[in-house]
């Protein structure tokens, strides 16, 4: 399963992020920062896979063990302070699970396309998938650049939805993906015109 997809630029600004598991907002930002710090340090000559477990899990797990003992001791009291602490600890636990995964990324000009996957996905397959995604964006936007992603982020998300749905890979064939994307665009236009017509129809009745 794919846990998250990020598009980050060379300076660390996040252009698109999709997470397919429940993660608290602030933790999402933390993940993005950590992932970028790993990926930006790697030169272009090294391999495109990073195993997160060796770098971060130990740090987060230590943090988690310390805090876990805090909740276990005072179970009886449920003051406000404990509530926030429990929430924090749950968020940390999600984070620790999150880091039990692999990072597969590709660097295109100014952008990093990063996929966080767990053990059930094939590494080379995901690399291919990133390629398909970028090619789909290219076909849709004609020589896609970073600005396209910034100003048409909804389209980017829609294209991504045709490839990956709910963390599972839906379609890997570029032609199929593009067919669906163009089909939906046509349908959108059509439904807009139908909606307009029906509005004008109402007016004429009045």
């Amino acid at each position, binding site marked *: 399963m794919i846990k998250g997809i990020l598009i980050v630029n060379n300076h660390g600004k996040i252009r698109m992020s999709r997470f397919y598991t429940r993660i608290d907002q602030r933790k999402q930002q933390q993940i993005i920062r950590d992932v970028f710090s790993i990926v930006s340090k790697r030169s272009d000559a090294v391999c495109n896979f990073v195993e997160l477990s060796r770098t971060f899990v130990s740090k987060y797990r230590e943090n988690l063990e310390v805090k876990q003992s805090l909740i276990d001791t005072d179970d009886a009291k449920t003051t406000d302070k404990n509530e926030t602490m429990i929430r924090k600890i749950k968020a940390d636990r999600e984070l620790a699970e999150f880091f039990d995964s692999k990072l597969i990324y590709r660097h295109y000009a100014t952008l990093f396309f990063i996929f966080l996957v767990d053990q059930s996905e094939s590494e080379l397959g995901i690399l291919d998938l990133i390629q398909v995604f970028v090619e789909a964006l290219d076909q849709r936007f004609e020589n896609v650049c970073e600005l396209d992603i910034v100003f048409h982020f909804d389209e980017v*998300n829609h294209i991504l939805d045709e490839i990956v*749905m709910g963390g599972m890979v839906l379609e890997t064939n570029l032609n199929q993906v593009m067919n669906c994307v163009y089909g939906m665009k046509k349908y959108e236009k059509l439904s807009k015109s139908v*909606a307009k*017509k029906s509005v004008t129809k109402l007016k004429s009745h009045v």
Partner: protein
Amino acid sequence: DISFAHFNVVEVMSQPCFSHRRIAYLAASLSFTVDTDVILLTVHLFKKRFSNVSSGSAQDAATNVALQEGSMYESGCAINCLANICTPYLAQSLLEDICNMMSSSKPYLRKKSVLVLYAIYRKYTPALRFTFDRLKDKLRDEDSGVQNAAVNVVCELARKNPSNYISLLPALFELLNNSNNNWMLIKLVKLLGSLIPAEPRLGKKLQEPLTHIITNTPAKSLLYECINTVTTCEHMSRGMVRLCLDKLRTFVEDPDQNLKYLGLLGLNKIMDKNVKAVAQHKDLILQCLDDSDVTIRMRALDLITSMVNEKNLEAIIQKLTDHLYGTDGSYRDHVLEQIIQVCKKHDYEFVRDFAWYVQLLTNMTQLSSMCKSNAVLVSSQLMDVTIRVPEVRRFSVQQMEGIIVNNDLISDAHNMQSNAICRILEASSYIVGEYSQFVAQHLILVSAMLQARMSSLPSDIQCIFIHNALKVVCAGLIHFTDDDDDGNTKSEVDDLLTRTISLLQPLSTSSFIEVQERANAYLFFMQWLDSEYRSHPQQLRSLALSLQALSASELMPLHPNSQQVIADKLPNGLDLDAWIFEAPPDDSDDSMLDISDQDADEWFSDKDGGDGDGGGGGCGFVCSLW
């Protein structure tokens, strides 16, 4: 966090225009969580979309047809949104609609509805029981996309609970033999691999089709997956092993870094079962150690450390230590740890020359900024080797002397990061004290151990230093009084005693209780020794000897089970739970103090009453102090 707008998102979802609804679906996917309460309102909206009601009555038939096609996209988008925001309530209510769509005429819808099943199963597990048969059917669907989706779902499910999906094996095998779609084959192979632990015979059955794929496929990803799955089989035939090794070797030799990494990963997995087979490629792996990519080096490191034996240990360690000096960061810590783990595997099975090992450990202490766990490891190794291997003690003590006297180490200890170095100092001072008969330069060593800068070290390290300094002083005194022909015995002894006393004095006012106690106690000893020496110089030796009797008995490590052995055989008549005396009254503390005072008085009055007694009484006094 846009929870204020959640209701508006749901509102837009009910708009007649598709493009608006699409935007709402996106907003929902990005911001709704399991706790969002307005999700309950979306159920009805989804139901409407799923039952394919094309809204609005357009004028011409062509638009109608187009709208019908478009409704496929409608439902598709709705399913997408559902997959992202699914909650148990949504899953339960919409399960039936999804099942209906699984038998839709359009493969696009079938594909999506199968895939969303996984999201539903995650939130609402009974759904699996209801839809399992349908899922099974989808494996035999005519459209390859739908088959792909079904395999995907089963693959994820089988990771958690493989035994439930054994019944799907015939269908899966059919797909394996007939399909051309690489992605699906990859998933299939992964799926079959995860089923092997549940069904052992599967391993044998798989060998043939997998061999066929491995030898014929051009796709590297599929090749790698097959090799991966083959390695999880219980028992691989030799031909199979050779085939996999050949293919993996081509991966590792490939200039593409990704393939190299995967090749090493695969070799790692085979390594667990056939160490010898992989050891043939040792030179190739050693080459990988020099690669510029950290990930590859880590993998190569793992491989190397598992193929170590007696002959190549020193060569490999040599190579690894060269690495140590060239790199930094977490990689270096990792290398250090691995070096030590390798050396101490199976109780030092591979280490022939312990002096070499001690030298190695000492060299490691010269590295700056060692992480804490590694420092603990190094220090425990130093102590372990020195205690258990008598022959290496002299060498070890010399090395440790070097470390302590070398001022850099103590000044380094001031930095926060090098808190780890304190562990090393602890080990070295223990060794020097315990085997002080081998110490060469007593005066210099004691000065270094008790120097003023030491007072900024943590208190437990200070205590250890003081304690061991005493042992060294005793050994020094004995040593000096040994060489009768050495003319300057008197001056050496003088120096040693006065230096020790002068160094201990500032420590006796330290703010740490333990340090103060020890410093005071030892200061007292030294002053008493000094005064004895001034009055009866020839008795110094015997005094020092009896003082040394404090630490005379040798401590050897015990097997962890020995306590249990004794505990099991209680001698008859011994009841461990009976009170030895009567139950103590509340003011027991006072009586303890009285006893110690009495001892002290006795001892004070016994000034020149014989060496052995004084020393023995002193011993008793010391024992009760701590």
